[in-house]
């Protein structure tokens, strides 16, 4: 473990900046999001989680896959420096792990070959993630439903606990440990374990009671044709706010933009809420009305992803709960489903 004074954060960011492009939570207009920073002054502290999720660091909303002109195809150059991300809460760090299962972790394709997404891998594999313990979760946070918690280290390379005046850093992954070793001498003597435990307990006490959703997968398998979907989806207006602030939603669309021999192919976030999501070239859309698309969102998160990767595609960050214009609360949906 390495303990630094909060005033040393600036030095840490400078140190990181020599080797990495550093991302951190910043004020972005009236909202907060993860952006590339030049100095520690830009970092905002004491927020539970940013309004926009950090998934965009590794999976940008619009990513140029290649450009073309009369001279041929050009793939964008790799970023010169790898990414370091400061200040990811447990829910977000866990989300990035999930996305890595989809994009980076040898996903099997039908002819028995393994597929890795190069655009994801070149950003994620060399990255260094500093998770930051969440001292004051919001009442919309429900990470505990998914066996996460404000002090959960999963997904972090280095896990950081924030006390009144210090950051206490602990290497979790091999590269995290290696970084810390190079950065500062390990010194356990000065760590107040009791203080950390009390911070953790206080943070956990902020969370609302855990709801047992262990049967959600089975329930979803059984209720495909039930009228409950009409009830759940009736107030959804099918905007994409929930999916775009979501830290785990990763459906994308590929768009070709070009004219007179020049152009580019872009990968763009898509949303199952949109009317043209899965609209086929024939004009047929298997998910033509709202109820089918709301069902898709719930099924993907709490059933299909379980089939593919043995976990729920949700970490309980609560962003969708906060932004929904009609207050369609995913926690209420889950509670309804487990009671069917």
């Amino acid at each position, binding site marked *: 473990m390495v303990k630094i004074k909060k005033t040393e954060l600036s030095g840490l960011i400078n140190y990181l900046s020599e080797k990495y492009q550093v991302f951190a939570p910043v004020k972005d207009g009236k909202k907060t999001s993860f952006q590339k920073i030049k100095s520690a002054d830009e970092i905002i502290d004491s927020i539970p989680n940013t309004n926009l999720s950090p998934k965009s660091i590794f999976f940008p909303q619009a990513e140029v896959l290649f450009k073309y002109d009369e001279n041929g195809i050009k793939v964008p150059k790799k970023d010169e420096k790898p990414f370091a991300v400061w200040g990811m809460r447990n829910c977000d760090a866990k989300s990035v792990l999930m996305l890595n299962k989809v994009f980076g972790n040898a996903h099997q394709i039908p002819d028995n070959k393994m597929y890795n997404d190069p655009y994801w891998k070149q950003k994620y594999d060399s990255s260094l993630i500093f998770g930051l313990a969440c001292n004051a979760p919001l009442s919309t946070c429900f990470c505990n439903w998914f066996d996460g918690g404000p002090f959960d280290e999963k997904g972090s390379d280095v896990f950081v606990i924030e006390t009144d005046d210090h950051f206490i850093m602990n290497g979790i992954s091999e590269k995290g440990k290696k970084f810390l070793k190079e950065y500062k001498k390990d010194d356990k003597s000065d760590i107040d374990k009791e203080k950390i435990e009390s911070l953790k307990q206080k943070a956990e006490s902020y969370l609302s009671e855990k709801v047992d959703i262990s049967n959600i997968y089975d329930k979803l398998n059984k209720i495909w044709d039930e009228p409950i979907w009409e009830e759940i989806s009736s107030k959804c207006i099918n905007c994409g*706010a929930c999916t775009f602030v979501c830290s785990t939603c990763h459906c994308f669309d590929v768009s070709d933009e070009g004219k007179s021999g020049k152009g580019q192919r872009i990968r763009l976030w898509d949303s199952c809420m949109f009317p043209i999501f899965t609209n086929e070239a024939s004009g047929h859309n298997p998910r033509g009305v709202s109820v089918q698309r709301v069902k898709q969102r719930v099924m993907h998160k709490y059933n299909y992803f379980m089939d593919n990767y043995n976990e729920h595609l949700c970490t309980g960050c609560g962003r969708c709960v906060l932004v929904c214009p009609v207050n369609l609360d995913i926690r209420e949906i889950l509670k309804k489903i487990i009671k069917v």
Partner: protein
Amino acid sequence: MIQELRIQIKKLIKDKTVDLVIGWEKGTLPLTATPLFMKTEEDVDRLIFDHTCRNNLTTFLTKDKRKLGKQYDKIGIIVKGCDGRSIVLYSVEKQIKRENVVIIGVPCNGIIEKKKVYQKIDKKEILEYKIEDEQLYLKGRDFEITLPFDEVLCDSCLSCSYPDALETDHFIGDAREKLDLPNEYSQVEEFEKKPSEERWELIKEEYSKCIRCYACRNVCPSCYCNVCFVDQNDPQWIGKTPEVTDSIIFHLIRNLHVAGRCVNCGACVSACPVDIDLLMMNKKVEKEIKERFNYTAGTDINEKPFTATFCENEKQDFIMS
């Protein structure tokens, strides 16, 4: 008032005057109401009406392939002033048959804009709240504050001349006449005074925040095209990236498409997850239409849409300058 409203709606449901009534119930977050679809008398017990009833519920009449209208013969809907204008607009634009909708008006004294509240308390979490005597009392883990209403009401409410619906079948409470607001367009006038480069910069700054989630479009009662131009992909009409060059086209076209049709409900402003000031451009266009065509959307059920009429004395400087 709420009891009277519930009795009225229960009566409508019991008599089978309506198959469904759309209203609001208490939401899961502080200062948040959520749409309520009432089919039975028991459902009505959950109905509320207060300063948190943000949604313009009329949007459900035209959304999702106009499903509700197909599913139910007669729909009751509770409306504030702005929502009532949407119904009038739908009728004028032949999106609904007036006789198929039972309009229940309620007196609106303004809706709280949660975004303004959270700005005031530095985005701290609200654990308790109380609304009393035109004041909002808030309590969180380490703060307690009382805010006067005029600081936290939606901008659209502060510039609203029609607090109560003009066209109703039932009105619970006392309906008021149109208000006279001398400063309705003060923000627009400020904007107009700026040089064009500055105006362009302001527009760019606002719309560069856009993440293209289309929450503004989808909550908007006036946005009901079967296929929105942003969803036209064969051929694709506009770029879909969150770059300002693409987003600005979306927003400015939407602005023009709701010209003379926007009812100033402010639903788009409240829905935007990145807090874009969407009202200003809508008000600018509204002002323009009012000056040129003496037309205010959704205020006269017998009037034709402004684009469907022509008067010789209309300002025509855009043609004959």
